């Protein structure tokens, strides 16, 4: 089995070298490493040339402006059976490729979703780590059982190249291409699995402005994809179940959160205290499971973020679904320095 890597990069000088090294330093090496330089204006091109001989680096004819266009450009150079897609701000765990290879030993499997962990930096990244922990230890495990992985993470996913070329097109009409790919695979009843041992470490926004902008892209992209693919939902029962659970919960409880505060501040306070208690119990469980003890205190700052999350969720629902103001401007959060 030939395993290729595809990494698009644009102005990634702060993290690129560490990312390349993590891709090279694998227990089961990649057979082909392809990096697509999307006409970066910083030292990314220079860093890529430093590793020529170990990796293949290609430059797009002009800046494409988003990740999926750079991926589409890079796909033509892939010669492997499996392609791993990740980001240039992401580090792969040493056994990542080994785990991916194991998952594809089942010939029915066409795509594997890896596990994403947030690199620790401050309270915001801690809250994101808390969300990832719940998302990947509870949501994704359950989705794996019912055979409906909601989204293949952009930072850690792998596909059979033949299937990818046959069923997935780069439409560039949503902000979350990874979700678009996942919908297309489900639509064709193809088998996607989740491998929690295929771990990647990613950078998450470290300030509120970047956090909100990233949320706008994620939630906005989520609504864009739902509008694009909703007709296929009733035909797949697990898809109908998952999508209605996630999206109805998101909208109805976001509205409820703000309404209860207006109607009965005292009761809202008590509900939030109860919510904090449950979130703390889950936080302790996640801290033990992930052996990351800070997760036990994450629910406290997370209580502030639920208001931000709910607000952005509703904002994007109104923009994308009600007013149909489609935003396709790609947002790239500011990177932090990653030591190679």
């Amino acid at each position, binding site marked *: 089995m030939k395993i290729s890597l595809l990494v698009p990069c644009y102005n990634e000088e702060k993290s690129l070298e560490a990312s390349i090294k993590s891709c090279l330093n694998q227990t089961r090496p990649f057979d082909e490493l392809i990096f697509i330089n999307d006409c970066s204006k910083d030292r990314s091109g220079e860093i890529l040339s430093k590793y020529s001989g170990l990796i293949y680096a290609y430059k797009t004819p002009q800046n494409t402006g988003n990740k999926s266009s750079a991926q589409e450009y890079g796909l033509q150079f892939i010669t492997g059976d499996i392609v791993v897609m990740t980001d240039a701000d992401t580090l792969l765990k040493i056994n990542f490729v080994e785990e991916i290879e194991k998952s594809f030993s089942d010939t029915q499997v066409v795509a594997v979703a890896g596990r994403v962990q947030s690199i620790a930096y401050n309270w915001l990244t801690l809250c*994101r780590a808390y*969300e*990832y922990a*719940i*998302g990947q230890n*509870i*949501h994704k*495990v*359950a*989705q*794996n*059982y*019912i*055979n409906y992985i*909601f*989204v293949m993470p952009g930072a850690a996913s792998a596909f059979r190249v033949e299937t990818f070329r046959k069923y997935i097109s780069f439409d560039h009409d949503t902000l979350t291409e990874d979700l678009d790919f996942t919908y297309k695979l*489900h639509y064709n*009843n193809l088998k996607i699995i989740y491998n929690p041992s295929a771990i990647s470490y990613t950078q998450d926004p470290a300030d509120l402005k970047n956090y909100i902008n990233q*949320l706008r892209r*994620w*939630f906005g992209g*989520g609504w864009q994809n739902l509008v694009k693919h909703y007709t296929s*939902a*009733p*035909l*797949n*029962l*697990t*898809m*109908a*179940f998952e*999508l*209605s*659970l*996630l999206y*109805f*919960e*998101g909208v*109805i*409880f*976001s*509205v*409820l959160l703000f*309404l*209860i505060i*207006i*109607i*009965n*501040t*005292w*009761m*809202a306070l008590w509900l939030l205290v109860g919510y904090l208690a*449950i*979130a703390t119990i*889950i936080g302790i469980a996640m801290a033990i499971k992930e052996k990351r003890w800070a997760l036990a205190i994450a629910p406290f700052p997370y209580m502030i973020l*639920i208001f931000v*999350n*709910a607000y*952005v*969720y509703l904002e994007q629902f109104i923009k994308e679904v009600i007013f149909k103001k489609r935003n396709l401007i790609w947002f790239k959060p500011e990177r932090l320095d990653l030591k190679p």
Partner: protein
Amino acid sequence: MITPFIGLSTLIHLILIIIYRLFHLKKSSHLLIYKYRSIRAFLGLSIIFSMFSFIFVSAVFMLHASAVEKHSEIHIIENFIDSHDGQVALNQL
């Protein structure tokens, strides 16, 4: 991140994990329900409708409970008006 909350979806997914592990159920397959497109569409729409009804009714119930509870802003305003002459109280508001 798939939902803005750790809420109902987390609880339901947790229950699913427990059921699957407790009863050693195998992973479900799309292929089992691949035939009979119209039945599938009907069942799918029923699931969507049921989920919406369940979540919506829960939300309305919570909203109603918060509105009738003694600390509710509506309740406080009503009490205020009742304890005064309505017109005077409204002028004061």
